[in-house]
């Protein structure tokens, strides 16, 4: 293997690694705040790519229907909850918050589809459609279980994954899509060709991570979210609503997933179920970080990217088997490097 191959593989690894970093960060964020191990995160990834592809060909994306259905279910659940707890006065406000944004987004999409907008606007539209799916999924599936154990939440997460994958097939069919690259530029550094798309991936991942870091360390709301992740009851006592925090973390996770899907769409073909494996690779990174440490998780996610890229060169058929098998030694390392006097639930 010559230097050029090494570099090309490194570049591939870095591209997918950057996306896994985004996913790993979202997973830790959601786990910290809601204790949900977000198995369905990958579905936001595939929904991102598939929604963009639908907009490209001028078809109403199925995710819009999903948005409306979830908003409908969430409204019913809110109505029942508020009426049974005697807080009927709040109902109009809550219903407006739950129903109006999805309806506006659906109308906007309907209006925009015939206009054949440029790619940038279509990406924005895609983000607008997929991001609210996060909070709605949280409201419908996880919020009623907020006090359940991690185990119950995990089972619910797997169930949601099943539902979303099934709906992905229903809405988008079994055909795979490739979305157009952000730019067709090919840069040459010595012997190495770098695609414009890869540079976009690096830049956007970097900017997004920097934004998150700024948000969580510099803004009051970001600090409040960290407080929830650190101690739910304590945060509740000082007036931070865990439900609001949960809603926000799911919105962020959906946005990050959607963005990852849009970034990866031009690089690999995305099917309705491709997101699952992509999301799980982000998980491997998150596990390196013990589901708590962002820097370690980012490092782990990059490692997954490189491991995948190099193993696809040497033992192509075993690429995925290797990436997931590596979880076992990682867990061994974590288990040996930490002392545990813990009480589960």
């Amino acid at each position, binding site marked *: 293997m010559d230097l050029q191959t090494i570099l090309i593989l490194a570049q591939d690894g870095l591209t997918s690694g950057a996306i896994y970093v985004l996913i790993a960060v979202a997973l830790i964020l959601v786990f910290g705040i809601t204790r949900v191990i977000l198995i369905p995160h990958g579905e936001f990834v595939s929904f991102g790519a598939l929604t963009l592809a639908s907009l490209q060909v001028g078809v109403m994306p199925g995710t819009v229907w999903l948005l409306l259905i979830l908003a409908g279910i969430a409204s019913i659940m809110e109505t029942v909850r508020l009426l049974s707890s005697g807080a009927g006065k709040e109902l109009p406000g809550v219903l407006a918050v739950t129903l109006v944004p999805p309806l506006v987004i659906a109308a906007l999409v309907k209006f925009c589809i015939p206009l054949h907008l440029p790619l940038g606007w279509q990406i924005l539209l895609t983000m607008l459609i997929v991001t609210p799916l996060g909070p709605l999924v949280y409201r419908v599936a996880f919020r009623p279980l907020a006090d*359940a154990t991690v*185990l119950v939440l995990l089972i619910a997460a797997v169930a949601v994954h099943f539902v979303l994958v099934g709906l992905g097939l229903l809405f988008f069919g079994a055909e795979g899509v490739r979305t157009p690259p952000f730019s067709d530029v090919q840069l040459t550094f010595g012997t190495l060709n770098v695609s414009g798309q890869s540079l976009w991936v690096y830049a956007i991942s970097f900017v997004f991570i920097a934004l998150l870091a700024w948000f969580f360390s510099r803004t009051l709301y970001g600090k409040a979210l960290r407080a929830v992740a650190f101690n739910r009851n304590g945060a509740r006592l000082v007036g931070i609503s865990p439900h609001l925090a949960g809603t926000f973390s799911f919105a962020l996770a959906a946005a990050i997933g959607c963005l990852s899907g849009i970034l990866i769409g031009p690089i690999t073909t995305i099917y309705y179920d491709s997101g699952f494996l992509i999301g799980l690779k982000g998980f491997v990174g998150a596990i390196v970080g013990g589901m708590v440490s962002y820097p370690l998780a980012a490092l782990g996610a990059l490692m997954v990217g490189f491991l995948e890229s190099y193993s696809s060169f040497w033992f192509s058929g075993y690429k995925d088997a290797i990436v997931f098998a590596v979880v076992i030694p990682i867990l061994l390392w974590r288990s040996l490097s930490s002392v545990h006097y813990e009480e589960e639930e």
Partner: protein
Amino acid sequence: MIRRVGFILFLTLLAIVPLFSPYYITMGSYIGLYSIVALGLVLLTGVAGLTSFGQAAFMGVAAYTTAILTVNYDWSPWLSLIIALALTIAIAFILGAITLRMGGHYLPLATIAWGISLYFLFGTIPALGGSTGIPDITALQLFGMELRDEKVFYYLIWVVCLVALWVSTNLLDSREGRAIRALKGGVSMVESFGASGLRLKNIIFIYSAVLACLAGWLYAHMMLFVNPSPFGLGQGIEFLFMIVIGGPFSLWGAIAGSTVITLLKTVLQGILPKLIGQTGNFEIIVFGIMIVVVLQWMRGGIWSLVERLLPPKPNKPINDSSNLPQRIQPARGEPLLKVDTVTKAYGGLLAVKKMSFELFAGEIVGLIGPNGAGKSTMFNLISGELPRTAGNIYFGSENISGMRPPQIARRGLSRTFQHVRLIPGMTALENVMIGTYLRTNDGILAAGLRLNQAAEAQVRAEAARQLRRVGLEESMFVPAGNLSLGKQRIVEIARALCADPVLLLLDEPAAGLRHLEKQELARLLSDLRGEGLSVLVVEHDMEFLMNLVDRIVVMEFGEKLAEGLPKEIRSNPAVLEAYLGGV
């Protein structure tokens, strides 16, 4: 009676199903196979509070092992079963050893990862036939007869399933089983009675893997062909769905769940694609929604509805006396517990600072202090729950500092918990039986095969005796969760007494009790002292202790403030200052 009739009806149904059509035989065989796997998952998830998405992968290990050994090497299927079992146990042991020390979510994550990994390996390794798999597996031979008939295989599967059900039922109703049922509330309770939480978790994970292995082996010899697809992560998840739908807290939930999911899947696979006008496994949408709804509204699954209609299980008879071995109590006045300049630091914070005090056999010592004085930390240092930073703790003449709770329990220290740690669904009697963990030694195998009945009768009698001793005979068969807090605390004392302790450690036993309950508790403790038992009580209720204890040790800010007879303490100015903020 109704239970028995129901069981006989169930057996009759099983027996006559194959008479209808080959279709029913196939469905019945699948339900039986899946039930075997689901039984293990009920024990793992519903009972022990752990979970695995890798049960299908364990099936795969067994199926591929037997496929390769019988096809390529001409081994007998029975011999390959032994290899498959050994392999399964080894894998489960390694996965468990790696993940079970850490938080509960690591086992499912690890099983997802290795399940996917294995699935890809099955599909890629040429020797395993790739995605086409391995055909022409040797048929099972039993008494010189080849088991190729579907009907015969159906019965074989259900015999295995019923045996697994029987063994699992026995297991739950045994010494180790009770400890496993206690795991969900955290390991510290079972550890304080001498069981190793890690070992129990490992055992139950291996047991569930072994059941999956049996199912995989049966599957391979039923189909006479294996390929990767039935062993993927999706199937592993489906097993978990079966028990969530069927009822994760009951072994029958496994059978109910695998029946419902298997039948529903067949129906939906027929209807949905036609309805939607597109091929695909759309049934997963329905299953996913069902799971979310069940988790939100009906955690006990289908079987909890059935259970509500059934009469309660009859109570087992209790022998009059037990002759479990008893310790020889030390002579009154002998030094029993010596805390020698013990310090516990959390970073720069000293929760306990150079504490020293002694306790002699036959006395009740009260360890008191205002909230945050470090009493509970001191208590946990003695019981081994927390490691100390410096100093030594002696029990008799032996240095017990640095020992873990099970080792300390073995030496005759027995404790209760500040926040009551009873298993709400188990009767008071069963809860108290956990206390005898170290006094009997029947293992998993004996329990599963019901060879432990003599020991069980002893344990039951002993637990009943302790409940009588503390005056709770009438609540013996009440689920612990239905008792008042005062009674629950007494049940905890009975459980501790069941361990035949030399020293009883009570962590705030009067917290949350009403006045009369406190009086009764004090009377009980004083009776126990009369019987020669030594007690260390951590309390902040001065009133409760004053007329009860022989000596009092007062803590404040992690340090010993005073020590002496109750009446001395009552008039000690430093203590009054600490409690009342100055006189």
